[in-house]
């Protein structure tokens, strides 16, 4: 066996140096806000149920007052398309904002690095610890880190499953050691994924596994915001002391302190130019601005800029690319809003009784039997009134006599429809069933079926 056993060609772990600055504070704020949202949302209540719950066994998704059914799958697909186009739009405007601030990979990695820092100290202490033999201190610190990581990962997995199983119930089941096999499996699966991605793999996910990292450059143009080192200003780089900051005029502004490299979470040197590994977190901008301040040089040797701005041209925000993405996005969002606001509260399917075309009753009356399936997507009960049209003299009887479409449920109603052959005529006829809500006469649903009379 040669080196084929290892999955790493080289295994030096990146420990990004801590940095303070505008963008770091923004990044921390985004991390806290997004994680807070993730861990808090399943605990929200809406009336007597969980506000956001994707109830897979019952095949119903609850989002505050709305209930979504499998028939509403189109909205989910639509939402995903909107998310995709939004990503394109933001990317064309501001580059990899998603990667640096909002991607779950980044957000959870930040959280895991914070925990690591609590247990193992700052960058140089962590690097020393990596190289140190297994002393008592190393064992203690590593154990502490693992306890923090595993607890956090398990809580993440528990929260994730809490979006699919009512989280209060789930919590009780865990406390009573009564968790179902699949719930346990998914809690551990998601915990493991979190631990692996944010604790172990980190930037490797972005470098080796992220498809967006590979195609995002297709959305870039010369007006897209990128993080860039001003080579003209910085080179030739060279170290110098603060005393002779001004005397060495043959040097560029880069003092070659390598802080920009040390703070980089993906381990690149931004001074080599834009690289696909760069997740645009702007840690190097913060680091360099701090040094520039100390050297009393102007800020912005590394900055958010555009290719046009660097070439001394004007950067445009409005341009064909952003207009196209923006317009498509606007149309999709307005369309979704419209579709959601006019979403039918009631839906009905009519199934004919399969056993008989018709039944003959006394006095020559003919009866056809139907099963009506009324879906009430809203969160209120609708008393229903039912009419059948299409033939003269139709009489309808339902079971139950006063049907109610129960909130968020599929209600089955049996309908017996009677007609006189003398009035209605022979053979098959198209008929239409219509239900109307007793709460609001605007809320209706209809469905077509066939009515059969003897052909004699």
């Amino acid at each position: 066996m040669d080196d084929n056993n290892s999955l790493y060609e080289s295994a030096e772990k990146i420990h990004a140096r801590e940095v303070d600055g505008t963008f770091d504070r923004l990044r921390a704020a985004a991390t806290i806000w997004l994680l807070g949202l993730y861990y808090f949302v399943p605990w929200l209540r809406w009336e007597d149920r969980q506000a956001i719950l994707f109830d897979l066994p019952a095949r119903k998704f609850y989002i505050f007052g709305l209930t979504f059914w499998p028939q509403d799958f189109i909205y989910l697909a639509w939402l995903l398309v909107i998310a995709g186009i939004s990503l394109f739009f933001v990317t064309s405007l501001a580059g990899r904002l998603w990667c640096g601030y909002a991607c779950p990979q980044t957000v959870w990695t930040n959280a895991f690095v914070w925990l690591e820092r609590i247990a193992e100290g700052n960058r140089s202490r962590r690097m020393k610890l990596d190289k140190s033999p297994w002393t008592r201190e190393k064992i203690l610190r590593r154990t502490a880190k693992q306890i923090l990581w595993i607890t956090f990962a398990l809580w993440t997995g528990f929260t994730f499953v809490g979006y699919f199983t009512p989280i209060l119930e789930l919590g009780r089941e865990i406390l009573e050691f009564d968790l179902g096999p699949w719930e346990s499996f998914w809690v551990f699966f998601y915990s493991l994924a979190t631990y692996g991605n944010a604790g172990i793999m980190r930037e490797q996910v972005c470098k080796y596994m992220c498809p967006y990292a590979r195609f995002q450059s297709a959305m870039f143009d010369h007006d897209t915001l990128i993080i860039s080192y001003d080579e003209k200003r910085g080179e030739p780089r060279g170290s110098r002391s603060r005393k002779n900051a001004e005397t060495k005029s043959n040097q560029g502004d880069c003092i070659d302190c390598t802080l920009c490299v040390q703070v980089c979470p993906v381990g690149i040197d931004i001074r080599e130019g834009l690289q696909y590994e760069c997740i645009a977190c702007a840690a190097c901008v913060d680091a360099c601005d701090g040094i520039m301040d100390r050297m009393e040089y102007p800020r912005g040797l590394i900055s958010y800029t555009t290719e046009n701005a660097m070439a001394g041209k004007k950067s445009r925000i409005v341009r064909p690319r952003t207009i196209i993405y923006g317009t498509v996005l606007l149309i999709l969002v307005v369309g979704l809003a419209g579709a959601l606001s006019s979403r039918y509260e009631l839906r009905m399917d009519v199934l004919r009784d399969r056993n008989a075309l018709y039944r003959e009753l006394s006095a020559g009356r003919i009866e056809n039997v139907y099963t009506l399936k009324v879906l009430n997507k809203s969160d209120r009960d609708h008393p229903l009134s039912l009419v059948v049209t299409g033939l003269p003299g139709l009489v309808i009887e339902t079971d139950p006599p006063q049907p109610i479409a129960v909130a968020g449920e599929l209600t089955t109603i049996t309908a017996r429809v009677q007609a006189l052959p003398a009035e209605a005529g022979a053979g098959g006829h198209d008929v239409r069933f219509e239900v109307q809500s007793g709460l609001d006469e605007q809320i209706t649903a209809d469905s077509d079926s066939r009515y059969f009379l003897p052909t004699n």
Partner: protein
Amino acid sequence: MTTGVGKNPEGLPEDAPRAWRRWTRKAENIAAILWPSFLAACIATAVFFGNIDPVDLYGNSAPLAEVSSLTGYAIGFFFFWIICSLSSLLSVLLIRTSRRRDGRARKETHH
């Protein structure tokens, strides 16, 4: 490219070595097989079970007659993941064994 280590105003420690974690081809292959197929399986599962209730589906077939819907979703998901992995596996195989860009054949490996 030199590592460009210099003394900075604070006398900070020199930069760490630049040989950051890098995956082997084997690790890349594993990720390229399992990860895209995982994403594809998620989409397939959502589309499939968005239209079909697993209880109806498995209720009709004798060997799986008594499954809960959660088991149904899980079976479906792993089924899709395996199928999609096979597709990724073939893609990786085809790309890794193709003639190289410079026209030279890849070294044949015999075991």
